[in-house]
């Protein structure tokens, strides 16, 4: 009878979608179900007999262990949230619940912990609230690593930031990551696209107005500089604002004060300004379209986001991310794209950058009736732009293309100076020489 009960319990544990593990009184794992294996990426064989903290790897283990609380107080913990780190180094948000385990005599023999993977819920929550941290920026490219490395330092300061990058390179996501890591992260992030408003409307949006300031101003209205006074204000497409507004913006940046339309008094703001543009602001200054003094006020910390064509190795990661995202949104289970599709995507020039890639994946996703996105779901303009590696459709070729393209782009950017390029790519120069030799990449011989 007891054996059959044990078998039933085990079958139940194996069939549920929540991870479950049990520990003895020495915190050693004594059982580990299939869902636990899936969520943690650790096999039952590896987990049993090891300390639970070293198996579970949660931020709760050291200071807020739910199992410890339960075994010390005899009370269960329900849905405590935290994260675990899986074998790949991914942070997986989880909720945990715990219970005490007793033997036949009523003695405590250990504890049980169930945990649920909240990745999907967390992804939806982030998307809805627009909260991002650097870990949410999908990248593995060396050129992006350099840019991401700056975020903690930028977040810790209150200086104005200028983000330059082509359209669709993720300027707002980057700005949100800065906000999310800084001391203002608990306050909302405000984003305004300066190109989306006519000049007069933009002025009233930014600075606000007093009742009677103009026809139709029947009440006072707060401007964004006032609303975001203790938070972060993201001014996208800053290069589009008129010379008149540039003067007012300069005053805000110099004096932290502004005057709402129709007001006789100045108001103070402590908003942290992050400006972004898809244009080269310095060139706009040179051509007289942007004030030089304002440029230097904005250009205190400048970050340049690389276009997608310079981070081709990120395309597989981004495609996987978008497929997952649409799976969650549309409750589907598409596994991904074929290697051939991936190679076509990696051969494309991506003038619209990540936004364009997302749209391409979304289109193919919507048209996909099987569990994998095939080549025929891509639009004609993509299919007409396949490179030599795209023809082969083999993963090795895709990887080679990514590596060669990244190296060639970096070499060009660094005037074929190999040590300098190696530094930019974050690899040792010997490694770069090996890659150059392996793929027969042409480098002018007078440069080293």
């Amino acid at each position, binding site marked *: 009878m007891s054996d059959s009960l044990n078998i039933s319990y085990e079958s139940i544990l194996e069939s549920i979608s929540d991870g479950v593990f049990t520990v003895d009184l020495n915190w050693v794992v004594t059982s580990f179900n299939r869902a636990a294996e899936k969520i943690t990426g650790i096999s039952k064989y590896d987990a049993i007999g090891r300390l639970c903290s*070293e198996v579970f790897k949660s*931020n709760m283990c*050291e200071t807020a262990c739910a199992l410890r609380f339960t075994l010390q107080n005899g009370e269960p913990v329900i849905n405590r949230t935290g994260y675990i780190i899986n074998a790949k180094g*991914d942070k997986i948000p989880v909720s945990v619940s715990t219970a005490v385990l007793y033997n036949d005599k009523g003695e405590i023999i250990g504890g049980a912990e169930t945990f649920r993977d909240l990745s999907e819920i967390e992804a939806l929550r982030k998307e809805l609230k627009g909260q991002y941290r650097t870990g949410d920026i999908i990248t593995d490219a060396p050129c992006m690593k350099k840019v991401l490395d700056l975020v903690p330092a930028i977040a810790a300061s209150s200086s104005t930031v200028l983000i330059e990058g082509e359209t669709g390179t993720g300027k707002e996501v980057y700005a949100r990551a800065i906000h999310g890591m800084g001391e203002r992260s608990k306050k909302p992030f405000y984003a305004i696209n300066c190109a989306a408003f006519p000049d007069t409307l933009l002025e009233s949006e930014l600075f606000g107005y007093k009742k009677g300031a103009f026809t139709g101003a029947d009440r006072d209205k707060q401007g964004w500089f006032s609303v975001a006074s203790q938070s972060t204000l993201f001014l996208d497409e800053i290069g589009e604002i008129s010379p008149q507004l540039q003067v007012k913006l300069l005053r805000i940046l110099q004096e932290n004060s502004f005057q709402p339309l129709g007001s006789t008094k100045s108001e103070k703001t402590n908003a942290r300004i992050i400006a972004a543009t898809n244009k080269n602001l310095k060139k706009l200054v040179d051509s007289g379209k942007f004030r030089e003094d304002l440029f230097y006020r904005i250009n205190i910390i400048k970050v340049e986001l690389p276009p997608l064509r310079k981070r081709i190795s990120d395309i597989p990661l981004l495609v996987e991310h978008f497929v997952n995202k649409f799976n969650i949104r549309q409750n589907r289970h598409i596994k991904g794209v074929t290697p051939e599709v991936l190679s076509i995507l990696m051969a494309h020039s991506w003038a619209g950058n990540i936004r364009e890639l997302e749209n391409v994946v979304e289109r193919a996703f919507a048209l996909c009736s099987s569990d994998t996105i095939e080549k025929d779901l891509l639009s004609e303009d993509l299919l007409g732009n396949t490179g030599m590696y795209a023809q082969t459709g083999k993963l090795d070729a895709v990887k080679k293309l990514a590596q060669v393209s990244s190296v060639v782009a970096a070499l060009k950017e660094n005037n074929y100076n190999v040590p300098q390029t190696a530094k930019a790519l974050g690899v040792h120069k010997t490694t770069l020489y090996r890659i150059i030799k392996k793929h027969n990449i042409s480098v002018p011989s007078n440069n080293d």
Partner: protein
Amino acid sequence: MKVLITVWNGRVSPVFDVAGEAEILELENDEIISRKGVPFPTDTFFNRVEFMLSEKISLLICGAISRQAEMTIVNKGITVHPFVSGDIEDIINALSQNKLFEMNFSMPGCGRRGRCQRHRRAGFNKK
């Protein structure tokens, strides 16, 4: 060479990102010339990195670490040996005998050739 090991209950702490204590060792010709236990900043990740840089740490030995955190630390010039588990004294002994990389101190699911080990970075002379 200065080494920082995150510590919890006499073992390598399970998660770097929240570790509250550390041991700092100074090695010269594989001999430990100094050792001290220190509180490890827990307020922000940025402060952790700053702390390691101010202590001139060149090797970090830790348990699980998020990819982003590891990437940032490596980019600051610190070699990271992550997903290590075990008694801190055993780790230090192995380190002083230059056998840390030979002996298996991997966390569960991170065998010597397991996935977690891919995070190990070049730059540390393991001899």
